[in-house]
């Protein structure tokens, strides 16, 4: 796949490095007005770059036109629920810059106990207190509840989650529509793991 990045931000530079290491990606370039591209990596508010019709992969929640949106840690958490064959009961996400709240939430070490705020019934966000980010996703399945968690450098995690959306685009490029990681869950989770994300599951307490 030929990939074009809309602009040179620190995050997109990290995304570029992740993509360069993937064998399915043939070229990675920044938009210069002439790029021949299969997939455009862009922020949702970027002006249109790349030849039309575009297939865009974004970390933002919404997307106009065809592509994959929500390529971020929350998207990975939701994709894990699809892989597990269940649905999300709750996601707790600790990341740098989030505001402290009154809701106690536990994350794996070294993040530990944080105090966050309920954003929706299924999402609580908390400050990470360092460059380390973490999410815990509680999934309801027919076999009972399970929890997955990820703990990693915040910028690395963001870059991998975004790049994974590009890598998961291959099979869906020919039938363009608006997708999220949950729609390409297996290839998305596999791409995140291949790029170095470790997913952990909580052992049942004795």
């Amino acid at each position: 796949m030929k990939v074009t990045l809309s602009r040179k931000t620190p995050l997109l530079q990290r995304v570029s490095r992740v993509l360069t290491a993937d064998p399915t990606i043939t070229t990675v370039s920044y938009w210069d007005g002439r790029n021949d591209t299969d997939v455009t990596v862009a922020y949702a508010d970027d002006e249109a770059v790349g030849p039309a019709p575009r297939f865009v992969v974004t970390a933002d929640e919404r997307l106009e036109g065809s592509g994959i949106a929500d390529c971020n840690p929350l998207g990975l958490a939701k994709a894990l629920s699809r892989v597990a064959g269940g649905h999300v009961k709750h996601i707790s996400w600790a990341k740098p810059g989030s505001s402290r709240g009154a809701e106690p939430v536990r994350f794996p070490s070294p993040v530990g106990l944080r105090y966050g705020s309920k954003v929706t019934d299924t999402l609580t966000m908390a400050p990470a207190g360092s460059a380390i980010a973490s999410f815990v996703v509680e999934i309801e399945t027919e076999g009972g509840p399970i929890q997955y968690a990820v703990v990693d450098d915040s910028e690395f995690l963001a870059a991998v989650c975004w790049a994974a959306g590009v890598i998961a685009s291959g099979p869906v490029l020919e039938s363009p529509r608006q997708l999220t990681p949950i729609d390409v869950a297996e290839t998305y989770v596999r791409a995140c793991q291949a790029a170095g994300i470790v997913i952990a599951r909580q052992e049942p307490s004795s």
Partner: protein
Amino acid sequence: MKIRNILILTALAGAIASYLNKQKQLDPPSADGIWKPVNPLSE
């Protein structure tokens, strides 16, 4: 009567403190359970 009430309240306070301390030991703020790396795709 007043001394009796003080003794009852003291005993009650001690019992509550003991209960809270025990709860804190069972559920310390830093507890996070045991997390094991897995491959969700092969589970």
